[in-house]
């Protein structure tokens, strides 16, 4: 037993215990699958797919993409200046550093769906409140992620830019941003992907897009349309993933 120490054993026992507790709390029970015939029955209604509403579905897909793109890109643009204030090495003052940090984690702690539900009350149904909900949440998330990239950036160029007599904010901008840019894009594309999934959920509460169509088709028992909705969503997510890695490779 060279590989294992007593601490490993204790960790193992604790983990087993937590897995057991979590199973009890979530009513995890594989024997329930004895009724799996219901699921097959249900899924068989999904096929064959119904292509009659394809043009409208594609239009909704575009709307979803637009929601996710706009929400995440606006989030990034707003987050960038905040992230410089929220990074220990570039913050103009201690006070601003801490307040920006706290502000960002407050915004981050509110889920998009809560933003969406609140905004619905003034903006009504549709994609606009969904875009804002995605944007707010992404300001919090990207602000934190980018500020961590800034803190990890090489100090050398920052020092060089100060040594030429540049103003602090110009020095930081020019020395840090080119360094972290590929990683910023990487984070952005991940958040864009997440935003697509989020906008589907926001569709369930009336945020428009393919998510809302999926929800409506489901609630009206049009399963042959549901299957096509799901298929289109899968294709969209895969396509965005490919596009993201293409852009990252071009940038690096």
């Amino acid at each position: 037993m060279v590989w294992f120490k007593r601490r490993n054993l204790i960790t193992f026992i604790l983990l087993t215990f937590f897995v057991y507790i979590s199973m009890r709390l979530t009513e995890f029970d594989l024997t329930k699958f004895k009724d799996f015939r219901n699921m097959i029955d249900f899924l068989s209604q999904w096929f064959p797919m119904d292509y009659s509403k394809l043009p409208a579905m594609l239009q909704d897909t575009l709307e979803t993409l637009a929601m996710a793109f706009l929400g995440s890109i606006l989030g990034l643009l707003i987050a960038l200046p905040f992230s410089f204030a929220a990074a220990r090495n570039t913050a103009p003052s201690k006070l601003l550093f801490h307040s920006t940090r706290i502000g960002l984690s407050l915004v981050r702690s509110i889920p998009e769906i809560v933003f969406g539900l609140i905004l619905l009350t003034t903006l009504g149904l549709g994609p606009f409140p969904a875009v804002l909900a995605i944007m707010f949440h992404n300001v919090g998330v990207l602000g934190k992620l980018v500020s961590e990239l800034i803190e990890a950036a090489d100090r050398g160029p920052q020092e060089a830019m100060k040594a030429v007599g540049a103003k602090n904010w110009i020095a930081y901008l020019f020395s840090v941003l080119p360094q972290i840019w590929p990683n910023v894009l990487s984070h952005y594309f991940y958040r864009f992907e997440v935003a697509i999934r989020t906008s589907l959920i926001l569709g369930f509460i009336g945020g428009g897009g393919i998510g809302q169509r999926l929800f409506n088709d489901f609630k009206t028992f049009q399963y042959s349309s549901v299957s096509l909705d799901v298929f289109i969503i899968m294709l969209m997510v895969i396509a965005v993933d490919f596009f993201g890695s293409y852009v990252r490779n071009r940038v690096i």
Partner: protein
Amino acid sequence: MIELKHLSVRYPRTVQDALSDVSVSFQKGEFVCILGKSGAGKSTFIRCLNRLQKPTSGEVFLDGLPIMDKNEFEIRQVRREMGMIFQHFNLIPRMSVLQNVLTGTFGYRHSLRNLVGLFTAKELESAKQVIDDVGLSEMLHRRVENLSGGQKQRVGIARALVQQPRILLGDEPVASLDPGTANHIFTLLKDLHDRLGLLTVINVHDINLAKRYASRIIALKEGHLIFDGIPENFTENEFHETYESKPKSVLFH
């Protein structure tokens, strides 16, 4: 030209001064090399000259005027007259040679013009001129991360020159280069120094380079100034005095 009086630096959470009561003055036209072991305070010394490091006590005079109490705006005016080159070159990655050199003009220009990258024909011309001076005119639009170490340091020198400095500072500028390249860089620095009539102050590990190029050598040991004179007077004795290690010199606790 530049004078240091009783300069001391102690970093937070250390018990010993990194630089201890150093007084020295430099004149235009001098090519000064600073020798000393790692941790002797060479880097701290250089960085005090353009106040990248703020001394704990003491004063630095530039043309007879103290620079310690200057505000941020005034410090930037001091810094833009001093070009600085670094061991790790400290270039901005993902930018071209020309773009990197143009950042050397930032101290003279309005921040908004820097932000959008509006340069006058004259600024572009002088950037291209200094790139030509360091022998990189073929690589104007090459990204700096694709250059060799020696070429990177040439870009660093060009960036310092475009500031039209009166003083050139070097913090171990050849420590990451092979001996041949290091020699080339020093030849270039010496030529530029003579042509532009600069004051040059450089940290260097290699005592042979110092003896060959310097007009004056300064040696630091554990933050103290232990030698100041012409290279001919820096002999075997001084060498041992500078580089011999005490068995129990503990800097941090």
